[in-house]
């Protein structure tokens, strides 16, 4: 015995209604014979059997809606006895016109309950008082854009004032403010309707108060903590070292030219150009820009270059120059001066201390020609920069005197290998040969 089921007559049909049976229990049917008329939402269609045999019990009544696949009747092989209780048989007479039966009268829509007077009042916040509207107008605040913090959502005077002083800031200006540590609330925008733009932030960054702020209790890395960190690094990190000499002639002469028409405050030092090159190279080689955590390399979410800064009294700190790969050279220079200034005065932000994705230690000013630094765990790379020195150097086959600098890179051999380090230094060297693009 097998089932005759509700067929699917279209991709969008998931149920159907038996309008009328065209067979009755005991009928012999051939494969392809029409069994019943089924109404889907669009039309009434005859459905056929895919097996020959004898109709057993009709399991579904005319008018009953069932899902696709639901057994509608049982089919017996020839000779099997139908079960005792046959379902009532549909109209025997074949309908003359196969028109679609009129849809059942849809239930009259129930009118929504009329909300009582009080409920209506509670829904909308009370209208702002005339004096408040006047105050808002004075400050050029559009009350419709203000959400009230008073009872029932009433707009208060404080809400209006807050809305008046909500600064409109361009996205780039907002990011720059974060990097340069500028408090936006204190910045007056020069853009249309007071919008704060990048130049406003830069101006604010320059007009920093003359008096050095009193050093607050920022986390200072004293000798003990440094010792623990360094020994952990040496213990856990299998260091490899690579180094190269970079001809700084192009950078130095380019800097000299651009600095000539820059105010002293905006002059750019070679160290900044080196940092910029390291940042751009790190962006191109993400495998050096991240952390080794629990045996796996985790790439940094962006390039934050840790700058090793000797703070007075022998302490060392390496805060991050955040998003260094996005900072053009002049902006990076300002960010660097600001970072070093705040590092020396202990006003570093938490993010700057926690987030460097690789570190640069520049001992050039300390007169050392080459330095192979110790990687700051959990980072996987550290770049060492030596002193800028004039040296004899072959240029297109001829001997000349060139400003040179020794670059080194210490790498965590678990994360990368010397080959990567070499490519990294080569990339930095190449970037430094096109200073205008830094």
């Amino acid at each position, binding site marked *: 015995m097998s089932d005759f089921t509700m067929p699917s007559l279209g991709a969008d049909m998931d149920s159907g209604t038996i309008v009328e049976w065209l067979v009755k229990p005991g009928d012999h049917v051939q494969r392809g014979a029409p069994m019943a008329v089924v109404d889907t939402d669009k039309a009434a269609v005859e459905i056929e059997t895919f097996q020959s045999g004898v109709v057993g019990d009709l399991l579904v009544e005319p008018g009953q809606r069932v899902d696709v696949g639901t057994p509608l009747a049982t089919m017996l092989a020839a000779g099997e006895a139908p079960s005792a209780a046959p379902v009532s048989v549909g109209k025997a007479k074949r309908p003359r016109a196969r028109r679609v039966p009129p849809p059942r009268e849809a239930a009259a829509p129930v009118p929504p309950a009329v909300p009582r007077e009080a409920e209506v009042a509670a829904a909308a916040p009370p209208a702002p008082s005339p004096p408040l509207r006047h105050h808002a107008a004075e400050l050029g605040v559009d009350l419709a854009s203000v959400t009230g913090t008073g009872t029932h959502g009433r707009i208060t005077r404080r809400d209006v004032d807050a809305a008046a002083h909500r600064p409109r800031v361009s996205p780039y200006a907002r990011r720059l403010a974060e990097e340069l540590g500028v408090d936006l609330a204190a910045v007056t925008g020069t853009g249309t309707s007071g919008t704060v733009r990048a130049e406003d932030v830069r101006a604010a960054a320059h007009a920093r108060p003359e008096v*050095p702020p009193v050093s607050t209790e920022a986390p200072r890395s004293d000798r003990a903590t440094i010792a623990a960190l360094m020994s952990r690094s040496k213990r856990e990190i299998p260091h490899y070292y690579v180094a190269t000499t970079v001809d700084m002639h192009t950078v130095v002469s380019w800097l*000299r030219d651009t*600095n*000539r028409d820059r105010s*002293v*405050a905006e*002059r750019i*030092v*070679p*160290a900044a150009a080196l940092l910029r090159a390291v940042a751009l190279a790190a962006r191109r080689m993400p495998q050096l820009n991240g952390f080794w955590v629990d045996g796996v390399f985790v790439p940094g979410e962006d390039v934050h270059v840790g700058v090793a800064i*000797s703070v*007075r009294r022998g302490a060392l700190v390496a805060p991050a120059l955040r998003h260094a790969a996005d900072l053009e050279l002049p902006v990076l220079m300002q960010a*660097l*001066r600001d970072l*070093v200034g705040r590092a020396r005065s202990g006003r570093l932000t938490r993010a700057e201390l926690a987030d460097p994705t690789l570190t640069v230690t520049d001992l*050039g*000013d*300390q*007169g050392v020609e080459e330095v192979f630094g110790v990687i700051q765990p959990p980072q996987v790379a550290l770049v060492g920069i030596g002193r800028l020195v004039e040296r004899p150097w072959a240029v297109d086959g001829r001997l000349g005197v060139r400003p040179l600098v020794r670059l080194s890179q210490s790498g965590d051999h678990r994360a990368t290998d010397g080959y990567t380090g070499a490519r990294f230094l080569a990339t930095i060297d190449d970037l430094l040969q096109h200073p205008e693009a830094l």
Partner: protein
Amino acid sequence: MTMTPDQARSLVSKQIRFIVPDADLDGLPPDADLRRTLELDSLDFLEFVERLSKDAGVRIDEDDYPSLATMESCQAFLAARTAASD
């Protein structure tokens, strides 16, 4: 108005003390290299130049940096540069 050596000395000392508050300037030999003895890195030195040029009201180009190596040379430089503007 040409700057006297004393005026120059106090001016230079003021700028240095701003960058290295605990610098021992009195005991500082006049020909000592300021950058090495006071551990001024390139950024410190840039700030020193910026303040000096603002305070003394004189233009200092990158090519002038060598003449600011020692206290002595600073005094000579400032005297010469302010004399020029008499």
